[in-house]
């Protein structure tokens, strides 16, 4: 998850498909996000590198669509439906996730344990 300036960002990602749940007139995904290039990265409890301004999953509602799909707290969202999430503002990220005409969102998320798992499997 660390990035070297000037080099492309490489990460081990997991593909998660979340089906939106209709609750009243809203379509909800069941998790909360934090972070963004307009936010203060030092306050992020989940990021390893405190200058990382990416979008992180801060809360997952129990029994919600996100938990069912396998999203975990502390995940960093890299892509949503093909749109990049590593260099967006908080509001842009929210908009990408809450498009009313989309029923399903396909996220690419990364977490520390994924990298460790890959390293273990390679050894």
């Amino acid at each position, binding site marked *: 998850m660390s990035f070297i300036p000037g080099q492309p960002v490489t990460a081990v990602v997991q593909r998660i498909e979340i089906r939106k749940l209709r609750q009243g007139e809203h379509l*909800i*995904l069941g*998790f*909360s*996000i*934090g*972070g963004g290039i307009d*936010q*203060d990265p030092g*306050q*992020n409890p989940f990021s390893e590198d405190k200058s990382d301004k990416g979008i992180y999953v*801060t*809360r997952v*509602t129990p029994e919600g669509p996100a938990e069912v799909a396998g999203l975990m707290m502390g995940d960093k969202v890299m892509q949503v439906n093909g749109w990049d999430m590593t260099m967006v503002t*908080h509001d842009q990220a*929210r908009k990408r*996730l*809450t498009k009313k005409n989309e029923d399903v969102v396909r996220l690419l998320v990364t977490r520390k344990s994924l990298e460790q798992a890959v390293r273990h499997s390679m050894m």
Partner: protein
Amino acid sequence: MDTESTHSGYSNRSNRHGEQSRRERRKLSSKDSSRSERSVIINTPYGPTQASPNHNSEPLLEVPTSVAGDEAPSLQDDNWGETTTAVTGTSELSLSQEEVVGLGKGSEDGLRQGCRRYAPLALGLCVGLLVLATPLAFLVLPAVLWPARLQACGSACEGLFLSVSCKLLILLLAVWAIFLRQAHASLPRVCVYRALLAILTLLLTLSYWLFYGVRILDSQDEDYQGIVQFAVSLVDSLLFVHYLAIVLLELRQLQSCYSLCVIRSTDGETRYYNLGQLSIQRAALSLLEFYYRDFPLHNPALLSASKHRAAKHLAGLKVYTVDGPGNLAGPAGGSGGSQVGGHSRAMISAAARRRDATHNELYYEEADHDRRVRKRRARLVVAVEEAFMHVRRMQQEEQKASPGDVMDVREAALAIFPSMARALQKYLRTTRRQHCHSMDSIQRHLAFCLTHNMSPKAFLEAYLSPGPTLQYGRERWMAGQWTLVSEAAVTSGLKEDTVFSLRCLDFSLAVTVKSIPYIQMTEEYVDPKSHKFTLSLQSETSV
């Protein structure tokens, strides 16, 4: 090179160009070599250049026979320009100012002045005596004229006597406080309200006398209590008229509703004052009191620089037609005036170049002056601080111990004054304020500062910036007699966009009136518990 020549008043000749006119101009301008300004006049060889109002527009020429012999030295005289001094307009003007001031002081008719000053006081005294005497007369006359038939009245009358005397005493004090004090100004016209109030009082008193005469004296009324009550009612009415007088004369102008802008004509000092509803002459009086308090002293020495520049600008390029009378179509004369043909372009470009030179000169002159002032000021501050270090207030115990070498304030001031005198004088000369402070006044101020334990900076403040006019002696004011110049009648009230001016000998104050806008204020209640805050360090959005 003759810089002290006093040639003047020679007959005018035709204008000669070249060396001769240069030489004559040198003689003309060196007439004022006593002026402390040193400036260089670069004159074009054509035409006269001085704008001094008493001289004709053509140069003063010497008698031509002596010119031929002197031409050779003047040609070789290369630095005549550096030592000539400028002819400014102020040389003649200041002389005439002093003359007029001296004349003005003596021209007032003493008797007429005294009459004008004391007439209102005399009138007020007469009305006051009348007012005092009438109720007493009402009370006393029946007792004198028909004492036998008068019914004696008991305690009620005594009570009424007490109230009459008390109210009369109050009325007397009140009339003295408002009307009978020494006026501190003489206004051009009678105050309308005072006149109306005097008339009202007189009418009231006369009508009471009328009723008294008809009802009581003629019929010889026996009811003394009724008569006393009549007198009491008169005193009550007079007290109410006095209340009306207070409201009209004093209270009405307390609430300010006009803002007046006062601009001094010589240096543009502007101040703004809020006044209430007043007549123009009373507003002018208040403004003059504010003028003496707020405006810095008028200093004619500071104005000569701009006059000098104006003189040079006016005496600029002139165009002379050499083609004959057929070319006199356009406007002629002065810098910027152009004639038809090829003259115009050359004129305008020459005028533009000349204007460049003028404001360049001004810039460098001002920068130089500022530097000089700052240098002198630094030296002055250091000199004063060192002088103040030498003198020390002696304690009580020391006084008893060593009686020798003890000085009082005046001697101490005289002792430390010489060390700072030179620096102070140089500074005042540079800022052209040396005429405002005499040596005696400086020593007195120094003694004052020593008495009150002031720091050197406190002593210096009086000299670093010009103070209000009132602080200087009467002879420095140059403004004792004021003339109110106004299009509207001076007893009419102030209105929006009224303009008037107060003129004295040297300058005038232009006053514009604007009314204060009607202020509409609404309220908004803020609950003290409604101030709530959240910290948004890391926003979290649920999707």
